[in-house]
């Protein structure tokens, strides 16, 4: 049974997985993995441009990547960003019920997020085209459009490897990682 989210044990287990993965993998990391999320978190935390643009921002932002079993993503993936007044407290992959409860949830199919992170799709444009869907107070996001754009730019600057481009062994490794995350962390 998975460790309950929100407990110290959950955070410790999550951090251990991140540490193990960072020691065993080398950049560029695979999009959506805990080590990639950690790399992204550090980029946001150290980015002066984001800090300035987001100085009035309050609330969590969740990127929801819809499941795509053929590439190893058997379930929807929720990347939760705890953001407050220009600070990024953490970015983590979280269980579905936690992700859905985020203040702003931006949902898209895997291909859409891949396009965003490959700088082929602008998030605002994607939302206007309905390729990405926002749950949350739209005016607040619009007011903070510069901060949101910066977050996306930073995600693209990680230059991740993409799950659909992995060989079979890579996809199996990803599937095993996500299965472990599900069993231990309820992700």
């Amino acid at each position, binding site marked *: 049974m998975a460790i309950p989210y929100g407990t110290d044990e959950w955070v410790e287990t999550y951090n251990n997985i991140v540490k193990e993965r960072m020691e065993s993998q080398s950049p560029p990391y695979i999009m959506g993995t805990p080590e990639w999320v950690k790399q992204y978190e550090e980029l946001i935390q150290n980015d002066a441009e984001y800090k300035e643009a987001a100085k009035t921002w309050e609330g969590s932002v969740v990127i929801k990547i819809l499941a795509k079993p053929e590439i190893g993503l058997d379930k929807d993936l929720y990347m939760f960003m705890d953001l407050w007044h220009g600070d990024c407290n953490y970015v983590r992959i979280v269980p579905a019920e936690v992700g859905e409860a985020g203040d702003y949830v931006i949902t898209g199919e895997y291909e859409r997020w891949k396009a965003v992170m490959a700088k082929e799709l602008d998030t605002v444009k994607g*939302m*206007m085209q*309905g390729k990405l869907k*926002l749950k949350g107070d739209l*005016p607040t996001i619009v007011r903070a459009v510069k901060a949101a754009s910066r977050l996306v730019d930073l995600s693209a600057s990680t230059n991740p490897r993409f799950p659909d481009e992995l060989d079979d062994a890579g996809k199996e490794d990803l599937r095993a990682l996500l299965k472990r995350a599900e069993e231990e962390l309820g992700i």
Partner: protein
Amino acid sequence: MADVKLAPGADEVAMAVMLSDMLKANLEKPEKLKEFNKLKARVYINAKDAETEITMDFNRGTLTVYGGKEGSPDISIETDAATLLDLANINIKYGMPWYFDETGMAVVKKLLRKELRIKGMFTRLGALTRLTKIMSLN
């Protein structure tokens, strides 16, 4: 509550849904509702990079949003999706849109560079000013 509705089929056009939701939220403010109740104009918006277009038909207290070009517009706005959101961030000062701060100047620069094209800017200046005040989140 302001009478803002989507024309049949417009609910399938994300930009129509986004902008009507944004307007509904804005119109909860009495000063914006007052402007809304005076505005009569048909406004066409084309987010060229997103290849999406809508028409907003303001009729003194009601608004119908169409998912595409509908009728003959009084005001046409053509730009990219991000600039449309910049327009929503224009500040209002002394009861008028304010173009002398960073956000306003960025919009003016885009106008000069023709990255933002507004037809009806001079012939329907009053309506455009009213529209800007209604659309502004500030």
